[in-house]
């Protein structure tokens, strides 16, 4: 594929920093080489010498002095090499991208930073952006300054509707599209990366929901020319994802092996399933005559529609606090924030079953009062 047409001028302008390129020389250097090019501080002067992390299963990760140096010193922009290798192996295992040899991977400071750099790589003010609607607020935050022309695609329980997508794109002439039949593994929905015969997918992965959000570790997989642009942007901004975070994730994955990793993700899945069930119980008990929702088959959110309320924004931002419940008004997830929105997003990740019950009860009161308010406003108009 030709990628240059997707890039902004700013992204095209990016050139490698010579000093970081020179650091690559060290890899092939003779032991006699005296390297005085990189402006690295001397890691011996860093005050942390060693460390130890105890895991919840009782095992320990030891950070011996040499490993601590890796945690504390500048590292390569694409990521701590052992972690990059582990993540590439994992990606290949989980997705078998059809054009893996033409792809690359970069560790980012959270997957959202990867997303931000990928979008900044491609979008110029006024560009068209195809997005599902509702859309993650983080993505809208990234896009908002560019005043994009949104092509919001409505969806159903399975997400974006292909017919709606085709209709939105119908004003442009499509190129030849390849058939993408693929055997689908039964228990794992196939990723776009796994069906990427054209090398047009940039995939954003995150450890935030399973290992830690505060460490700020995610990763981007995609076509080499596009990942390279992200690497160049990282090179002049954050330099690389936090090194200690990368080392900790790497050591943990090494300790666990594949078996331990999937055992952990199974446990996380089971936990969030219990949370979802408790949330649904609370919603059914208090909101069944007031709200509509689809049962989420994963994740941590319940997307509630309030058919009898015109717009949930003011109800939540101005009145919900008095009812001791806060959730996010659906308008925050809409491309066009001038239109009213009847939806709300509730997160069930952290709240206890008792508080879910209380929260849904409070929400029911809030909605009922809002309906009365709406009616009295209508009759006074």
């Amino acid at each position: 594929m030709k990628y240059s047409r997707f890039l902004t001028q700013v992204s095209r302008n990016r050139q490698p920093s010579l000093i970081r390129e020179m650091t690559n020389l060290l890899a092939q250097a003779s032991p006699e080489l005296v390297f005085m090019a990189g402006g690295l501080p001397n890691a011996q002067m860093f005050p942390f010498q060693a460390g130890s992390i105890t895991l919840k299963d009782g095992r320990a990760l030891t950070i011996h002095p040499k490993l601590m140096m890796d945690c504390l010193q500048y590292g390569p922009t694409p990521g701590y090499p052992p972690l990059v290798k582990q993540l590439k192996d994992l990606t290949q295992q989980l997705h078998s991208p059809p054009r893996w040899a033409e792809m690359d991977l970069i560790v980012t400071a959270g997957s959202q930073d990867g997303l931000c750099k990928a979008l900044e790589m491609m979008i110029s003010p006024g560009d068209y952006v195809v997005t599902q609607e509702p859309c993650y607020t983080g993505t809208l935050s990234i896009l908002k300054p560019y005043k994009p022309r949104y092509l919001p695609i409505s969806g159903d329980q399975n997400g974006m509707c292909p017919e709606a997508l085709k209709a939105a794109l119908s004003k442009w002439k499509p190129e030849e599209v390849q058939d993408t039949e693929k055997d689908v593994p039964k228990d794992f929905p196939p990723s776009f990366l796994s069906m990427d015969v054209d090398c047009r997918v940039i995939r954003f992965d995150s450890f935030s929901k399973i290992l830690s959000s505060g460490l700020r570790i995610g990763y981007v997989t995609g076509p080499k020319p596009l990942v390279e642009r992200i690497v160049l942007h990282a090179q002049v901004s954050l330099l690389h994802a936090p090194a200690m975070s990368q080392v900790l994730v790497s050591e943990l994955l090494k300790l666990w092996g594949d078996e331990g990793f999937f055992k952990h993700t199974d446990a996380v899945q089971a936990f969030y399933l219990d949370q979802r069930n408790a949330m649904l119980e609370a919603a059914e008990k208090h909101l069944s005559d007031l709200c509509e929702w689809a049962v989420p088959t994963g994740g941590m959110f319940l997307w509630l529609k309030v058919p009898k309320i015109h717009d949930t924004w003011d109800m939540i931002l101005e009145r919900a606090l008095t009812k001791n419940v806060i959730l996010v008004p659906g308008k925050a997830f809409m491309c066009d924030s001038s239109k009213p929105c009847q939806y709300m997003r509730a997160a069930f990740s952290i709240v206890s079953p008792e508080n879910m019950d209380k929260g849904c009860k409070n929400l029911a009161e809030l909605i009922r009062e809002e309906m009365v308010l709406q009616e009295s406003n209508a009759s006074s108009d």
Partner: protein
Amino acid sequence: MLIACIVIFKYMNSKTLLCIKGANIGMMDYSKFISKLSSRRKPSCISELRRALDNCSPSLVWLASGMPNPEKFPFREMTVTLEGGKKLTLSKETLSAGLQYGPSHGYLPFRNQLKRMVEQWHAPPRWAESDLIVTVGNQDGISKALDMLLDPEDFIVVPDPCYSDFLCMLSSLAPQIVAVSVDDQGMRPDILQSALEKAISSGSTGIPKALYLVPNSCNPTGTNMGEERRQEIYAIAQQYDLIILEDDPYCFLQFNDKYLPSFLSMDVDGRVLRFDSFSKVVSSGLRIGFVTGPPPLLQGITLHMQASCICPPMLSQVLIHELLTSWGDEGFKKHISDICQFYKEQRDAMIQALKTHLTGICEWIVPEGGIFVWLKVLHLSDTSAMLLERGAKGDIVLVPGREFMVDSTKPSPYMRAAYSCVTPEEMMKGMENLAKLIQKEIELQSTHT
């Protein structure tokens, strides 16, 4: 805007009268500095909702943010051993904070700690109207500041030579660059003045918006800007209404006790954005820096962070906070003293190696801090090909001076050497190798001519 003209006499110099106009009674108008793109950034709805948490009842049921449940994070305890053997154990709450999303502008206890330190070190004249945010390394703060400030038609003032990564940032944004030659103290005020005059009479629709400099142990030249010079530059920034980007990662690596006041400490107008770093002092890999300045400018950086990394790495912030708390002011001063001693010895060994092997071949100014020596080769017009094509074979690698010039097409006889990580023996060997490399290059050039 009312400007009360109070002339401050800092030093009476027979040649120059120093004059910083101050203090502005009102706030500066910052809206003119914000790029069109940055002006369209908005806080996320969820961050607005979070304000509700400030004064809420304990009965509030919070279903708003998509925070993952920390019960499922596999880490339970963390201990680090410091130099000297002392152990720091993170409490359960502290480790939890280190593993969960945090505020975009930084972990609150850490921010408060840093604010106290900044107030102590710089006593900024407009401290009550200033704020501080934590960034993912100071360079990310600078990168986001440029994104916030510059539209393509705008002017930015840089020293020439300039930190190469900063030039990389500019090469992608492609604003109008005002390059100002330097002397042994950095940017020359006379050249700055004439370059700015030329810029504003150029007929461009853009305006000179900002001035970037590294006042202490400048990268690559290693020079320190004296106090008088800083005041002159500040006065010119006032005259042309520029934001000053004070990039100061080497402020703690100064070898003598001579105090050089920061631009922040003389900022009577509220026009300085100061970028601090822990990379040379505590750790580069943890990726922690901080920015101090006027809230309307910090807001632009924070909103961009909100959309990108969400927050600076929490564990890194927690660790540094715990470290600084355990040290107290005394411990911090001692650590700075120790690292200064180390880098001073490194510098001394480097100068010794230079004197031994490169006298008559190169010229240099002895740096009073930092980690770089800026060498000029006396009989070569350009060092790039020598270093990039023949340096590795000659077992010595330095950075060619061209890399730091605003116009990288022009030849440069300079080279930057870092003495931070090499041993004195390696320095001797390296300078010996460099002398041979230069001699060979001179011969090569004379056979061509």
